[in-house]
C-alpha cells in the first residue's frame, strides 16, 4: 500500500505531471476525454434508455427534436432518431463502440508491429529484410483499400447469420492491419540501438534466452515512442472507422458506432431533422479532438529531442 502511495507521489513530482499541471488546455482535454470515456463505458448504467432493446422502442416516438424545441418530449434530452431511439443514449452506446473499435484496432496493430519490430531488429539478416519488405508492400495500400479487401474476405468466409455479429472484429482487423508498419519501424530502430549495448551482450553471455532479453530489456526501452504512436493512432483509428461507416464498410446499424449514426443521419441533413446527424457528429469530433490533444501533448513531452 505504502509502495503505491510512494509511486504515486513520485509520479506527482515527475516532470510529466509537472508539465501536465502547467498546460490548462491539456487538462481540459483530459477532463473532457475522461468524461466521454466514462459516459461510453458506463453507457448501460447512465444512459436514460436502452436503445438496443428492440422491445422498448416505439416507432411513434421517432424523430422527436431535442427538448428545447417545440414538439419535443421531455424524456428525450437530445431528441430521437428515425427508429424512435433516444439520441443521447444512442450516442453513449455509439461512443462505446467507437472507442472499443479504436482501442482494439490500435492494440492489434501495436501487438503485431511491436512483435515484428523486435524480431526484425534483434535478428536482423533475411528475417529483417522480409519483414521490412512486407511493411513496404503494406504501405502501398491505403487503409480504405485494405478495408475493402478484408470486408470482402469476411463476406465470403462467414456464414450469413454470422456476418453482422462478426462485423466488430472485421472492422478492427481492417483498421488495425493497416497500421502495424509504423510501430514495427519505430521498435526496430530502437531495438537495433539497444542490441549493440553492453547490457544485452552481457545478458547474452550469461545465456539468457533471446525472448527474455527482448521482453525484459529491450521492450521497456521502446515503450515511450510506442505509447505516443498508440495515442495518436487511436484518434486516427476512430476517425477511420467513421469514414468506413460512411462508405458502408463500418459497424452495422444493429451495433452502431458514432460513424454509423452519422451516416444514418446524413440522409436527414437537409430534411430539417439536423439533430440526428449533428449530435453524433459533434460527439465524434469532440472525442477525437480530445484524444489528439492529449496525444499531441504526450508526444511533445516524451520526445527527448524537443526538451
Amino acid at each position, binding site marked *: 500500500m505504502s509502495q503505491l502511495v510512494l509511486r504515486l507521489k513520485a509520479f506527482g513530482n515527475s516532470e510529466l505531471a509537472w508539465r501536465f499541471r502547467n498546460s490548462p488546455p491539456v487538462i481540459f482535454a483530459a477532463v473532457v476525454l475522461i468524461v466521454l470515456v466514462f459516459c461510453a463505458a458506463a453507457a448501460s448504467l447512465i444512459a436514460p434508455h436502452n436503445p438496443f432493446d428492440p422491445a422498448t422502442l416505439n416507432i411513434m416516438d421517432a424523430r422527436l427534436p431535442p427538448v428545447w424545441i417545440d414538439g419535443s418530449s421531455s424524456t428525450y434530452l437530445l431528441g430521437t432518431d428515425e427508429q424512435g431511439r433516444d439520441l443521447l443514449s444512442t450516442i453513449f452506446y455509439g461512443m462505446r463502440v467507437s472507442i472499443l473499435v479504436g482501442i482494439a484496432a490500435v492494440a492489434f496493430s501495436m501487438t503485431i508491429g511491436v512483435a515484428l519490430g523486435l524480431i526484425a531488429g534483434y535478428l536482423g539478416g533475411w528475417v529483417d529484410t522480409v519483414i521490412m519488405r512486407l511493411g*513496404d*508492400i503494406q504501405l502501398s495500400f491505403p487503409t480504405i483499400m485494405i478495408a475493402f479487401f478484408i470486408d470482402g474476405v469476411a463476406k465470403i468466409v462467414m456464414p450469413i447469420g454470422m456476418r453482422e455479429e462478426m462485423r466488430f472484429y472485421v472492422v478492427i482487423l481492417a483498421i488495425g492491419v493497416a497500421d502495424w508498419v509504423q510501430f514495427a519501424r519505430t521498435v526496430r530502430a530502437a531495438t537495433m540501438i539497444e542490441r549493440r549495448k553492453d547490457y544485452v551482450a552481457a545478458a547474452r553471455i550469461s545465456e539468457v534466452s533471446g525472448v527474455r532479453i527482448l521482453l525484459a530489456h529491450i521492450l521497456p526501452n521502446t515503450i515511450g515512442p510506442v505509447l505516443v504512436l498508440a495515442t495518436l493512432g487511436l484518434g486516427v483509428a476512430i476517425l477511420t472507422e*467513421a469514414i468506413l461507416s460512411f462508405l458502408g464498410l463500418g459497424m452495422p446499424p444493429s451495433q452502431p458506432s458514432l460513424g454509423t449514426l452519422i451516416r444514418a443521419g446524413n440522409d436527414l441533413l437537409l430534411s430539417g431533422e439536423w439533430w440526428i446527424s449533428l449530435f453524433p457528429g459533434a460527439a465524434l*469530433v469532440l472525442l477525437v479532438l480530445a484524444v489528439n490533444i492529449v496525444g499531441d501533448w504526450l508526444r511533445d513531452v516524451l520526445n527527448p529531442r524537443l526538451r
Partner: protein
Amino acid sequence: MISLLATRLTSVILVMLVVSALSFSIFNFLGDPVNNILGVNATLAQREELRVALGLDQSTFVQFWRFVERAVVGDFGVSYRNRQPVVDLILARLPATLELVMCATVIALAVGIPMGVYTALKPRGLLSRSLQFGSLLGISMPQFLIGMLLILVFSVELRWLSAFGRGEVVKLGWWTTGMLTTSGLKALIMPTITLAVFQVSMIMRLVRGEMLEVVRTDFVKFARARGLSDRAVYLTHALRNSLLPVITITGLQIGSLIAFAIVVEAVFQWPGMGMLILQAIEFADFPVMAAYLAFVGFSFVTINLIVDLIYLAVDPRLRAK
C-alpha cells in the same frame, strides 16, 4: 543506385501480383455481375449462358491466370458496368482525381508551411495557439462531415457553389482539366478544401516540429553566434533544412490522398478514380476493381521510389552507403 532500382522494381512487380491475386480471389465471391446485366426477369439458363460468356464459370485460378496473361500486355479487360476497356476508363477518370489531389497538395503546402513556420517562431502567441488548436481540429474531423457542411452552407443556403461534378472541362489530348473554365474552377473549391484540411494541419505540424528541432541543432546556434538576425536564421537556415522531410512526407501522402479522395468524390459526385471504384464495387465489376487496385499499388510504389531517388540525389551520405 542500380541495386536499389532493381529491388524496388522487384517489389513493384511483387506488389502488382499480390494485388491482382487478392483482388481476383476475393472479388469473384462478392457478388454476381450477371444479375445487374440481365435484370430480375432472367431465367437460370440465361444467367448461366452469360456466366459462360464472361468466363465466370471457370475456376478462380483459371480466371486469375487469364487476367494476369492479359494484364501483362496492358489489357485489363472490359468493364462489366459500362462496357469500356478498363484501361480507357481509368485513364478517363485519372485527370479528375489527380487534379483534385494536386490542388489539395498545393494548398496544403502554401497554407501549411507558413503556418508551421509561424507557430515555430512564436510558439506562445495567441495566433499560434489558435492555429495549433485549429490544426488539431483539422485532423479530428472526418472529411465527409466537412464536405456535407460545406455543401449545406455554400450550395443550399448561399447558392454560391455547385454541389456536384467538375463543372465544364476542357480536353487537352487525353487529359481533361477543369482549371481553364470558371465553372470548373468554382467546382474545384469545395472538394479541394475538404481534401486539403487534413493535409494543411499535417504539414503545419510537421514544419513546426522540424523547425523546432533544427533550431536546436548546432549549426543554427553557430549561425546565431555569427550575429545573423533571428529572421534570417529561421527563414534561410532552419526552414531550408526542415523542408526535405516535409517534401518527402508530402510526396508519400499523395498516395493516401488518392485513397481519401474516394470519400470526397463520393460526397461531391466528382467523376474520378474514387467514384469509379465505388461504382465498380456496387456493380461487382471485377475487372475494374482488380485494375484499380493494381494501379493504386503501382502508383504508391512508384511514388515511394521517386521519393527515395530524390533523397539519394539530395543527401550524399546515403549514396556512400
